């Protein structure tokens, strides 16, 4: 518009961009929260301990929490008005709900570690229970047979689940069959199949006739447990892999098909490699789920005290069965054996989970590296 070129004068400094965040907590807010918390605690103590007799610590907590909410609401209404007060009230409740997720987990972990750790010895990993007297102290516990059983059964389960689950997920995503809908509904329904029913089914369909006709393979053994576990793990793995495959961009598929590749080739060389980390995570989480499954084993692998490395004949122990058997006993040293097993089980599941997270994170890291320059550029353009 103006054509006169103004002499280069000192540009007025652009006001620093300050993001206004109406929902952010200010220092004052924090002080109010702190004040309310302190006065709620004191009031609770005064009422429940000086005026009345408190029914217990939980009651203290509940009363104090309710008082805190009420006080905080009133103070904020005074300061900022009714809308803001309701908003803050809900925020507090929501945070409490999220804590409700965390607290039981911490208690659970703490309890099992405290109960199991004092009796866990290296010997647990080197011998079985056949030579340990029932009255022996819990530090003598041996769990090698259970660990071997769990490893073998899980590995065998994977042999069935990985191909079948992958193929089903590919079927759901990459084909245009008219059976896709019923199959997806069935997979959903099956993922809620009670695990005990899976065990009962194997028992009814294979083990009873097997024992009657004397076929060794269809009797109480690790392989039967594997079949039951397959039924538990298959739907979960299929569903997760299904979700992961859905995340593969259609552009990649179309590019491959446009280059003349067949559908099978596209799935094998494009879709599955792209989804590899996600599939791995799904499988590892599936393993974690199966490793702790107990109910179907009661009807299938049955459990044993001694070592049985052959999953195809005779009852076989596994860690969950080991725990289940011992914690039900009344004797203290025997119960402690159960807690040792529980500790080992939880360690196993945590390490599996950690591996899954690491494998899964790999991909997200790469992604964030790829997007970061973009974000920086966008920020510059906006300015």
């Amino acid at each position, binding site marked *: 518009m103006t054509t006169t070129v103004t002499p280069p004068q000192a540009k007025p400094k652009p006001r620093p961009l300050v993001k206004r965040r109406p929902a952010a907590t200010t220092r004052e807010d924090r002080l109010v929260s702190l004040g309310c918390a302190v006065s709620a605690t004191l009031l609770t103590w005064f009422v429940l301990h000086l005026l009345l007799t408190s*029914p*217990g610590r*939980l009651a203290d907590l509940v009363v104090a929490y309710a008082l805190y909410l009420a006080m905080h609401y009133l103070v904020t209404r005074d300061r900022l008005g009714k809308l803001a007060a*309701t*908003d803050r009230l809900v925020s507090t*409740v929501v*945070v409490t*709900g*999220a804590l*409700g*997720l965390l607290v039981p*987990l911490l*208690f*659970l972990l703490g309890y099992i570690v405290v*109960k199991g750790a004092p009796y866990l010895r290296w010997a647990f990993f080197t011998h079985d229970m056949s030579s340990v007297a029932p009255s022996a102290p819990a530090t003598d516990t041996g769990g090698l047979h259970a660990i071997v059983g769990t490893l073998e059964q899980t590995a065998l389960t994977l042999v069935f689940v990985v191909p*079948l689950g992958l*193929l*089903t997920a*590919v*079927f*759901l995503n990459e084909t245009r*069959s008219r*059976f*896709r809908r019923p*199959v997806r*509904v*069935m*997979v*959903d*329904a099956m993922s*809620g*199949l*009670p695990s*005990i*029913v899976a065990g*009962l*089914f194997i028992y*009814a369909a294979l083990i009873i006739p097997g024992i009657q006709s004397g076929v060794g393979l269809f009797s109480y053994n690790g392989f039967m447990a594997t079949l039951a576990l397959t039924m538990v793990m*298959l739907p979960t793995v*299929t569903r997760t892999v299904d979700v992961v495959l859905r995340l593969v961009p259609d552009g990649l598929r179309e590019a491959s098909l446009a280059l003349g590749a*067949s*559908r*099978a080739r596209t*799935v094998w060389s494009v879709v599955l490699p792209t989804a590899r980390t996600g599939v791995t995570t799904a499988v590892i*989480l599936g393993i974690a*789920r199966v490793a*702790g*499954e*107990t*109910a179907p084993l009661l009807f299938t692998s049955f459990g044993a005290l001694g070592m049985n490395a052959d999953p195809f004949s005779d009852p076989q122990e596994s860690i*969950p069965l080991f*725990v*289940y058997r011992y*914690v*039900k006993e009344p004797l203290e040293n025997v119960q402690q054996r*159960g807690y040792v097993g*529980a500790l080992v*089980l939880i360690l196993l*599941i945590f390490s599996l*989970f950690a591996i899954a997270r690491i494998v899964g994170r790999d991909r997200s890291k790469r992604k964030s590296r790829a997007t970061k320059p973009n974000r920086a550029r966008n920020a510059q353009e906006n300015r």
Partner: protein
Amino acid sequence: MTVALPRPDPSPPGSPVKRAVGEVLSRADRVFRRVTTGAGLSMLAILVVIGFFLVYRSGPALDASGFGFFTTIDFDAANGKLGVVGLLYGTVVVALIAVCVAVPLSILAALYITEYSSGKLRGFLTGLVDLLAAIPSLLYGLWGFSFLGPRVAPVSAWLTDNLGWFPPFAQKENALFINSMFIAGLVVSLMVLPITTSVIREVFTQTPPGEKEAALALGSTRWGMVRTVMLPFGRGGIIGGSMLGLGRALGETIAVSLLLPQIPQIATHVLQFGGATISGYIANNSGASGLALSGLMAAGLVLFVFTLATNFTASVVISKSRSGAGVDA
């Protein structure tokens, strides 16, 4: 490009004539299609076979007790009295308690994860929910039985003393407060929590951002936005997630088998010792044979049908809530 005005009849090589693209499958593709279809259908087959064998094995029990199986409370094969009502009642009560505890908590947790937390914390909490799902039922049961149970008993006692006029909280004289359906429900609720939270969270994250921003831009508070946009949008997901959780709770086995005495009965007093669930009863009687075993199979069949129906409804509700929102997921 080139526009052939009157189409030249004998098309010279290279002219744009529409070619019929028939789907001629290569051999690899045919094999691929067959194999994947086979895998998909095997899933259907497994469910059908499970149902068939449960019906087949439960035949003797259903023959012996006839329709009485669905009206008798006791489950006592030695006296020929077989019934599923007592077991089914316990199963449903425990599952309902679990869902009532878990659903409000998971709505809050899902809200926190999607709306209130930020960046790293969100990833951490999402991982935490996955971790909660990976912890075996056995460990929850173990913890509930030896740690939570004794600590919840005083709460139950207090509820009875002060709210005893409410029938479920009443109890008989001198009854114990441990191993009650209430405690079992609490423990099962912990196991239901991950599945409901992740379903609800997923629905919440699919809320159209435009509508959320519109609400905020109109001057709504965060709670106002949640109440007017996210909760109505996520209602289908909340209902579906709850039902999915209910299905999980119905089938929960080991924790319940450790926690409850497994006596089939209809006890309205949920706070006191007693109760049984189908899955827990089956687990505790895994050595049964003959008619008792057949009765267990029949009970398992009832459980199977029940959970399938619940899950089926849940998945329909969830998928409806998604497709209705125009988001294909």
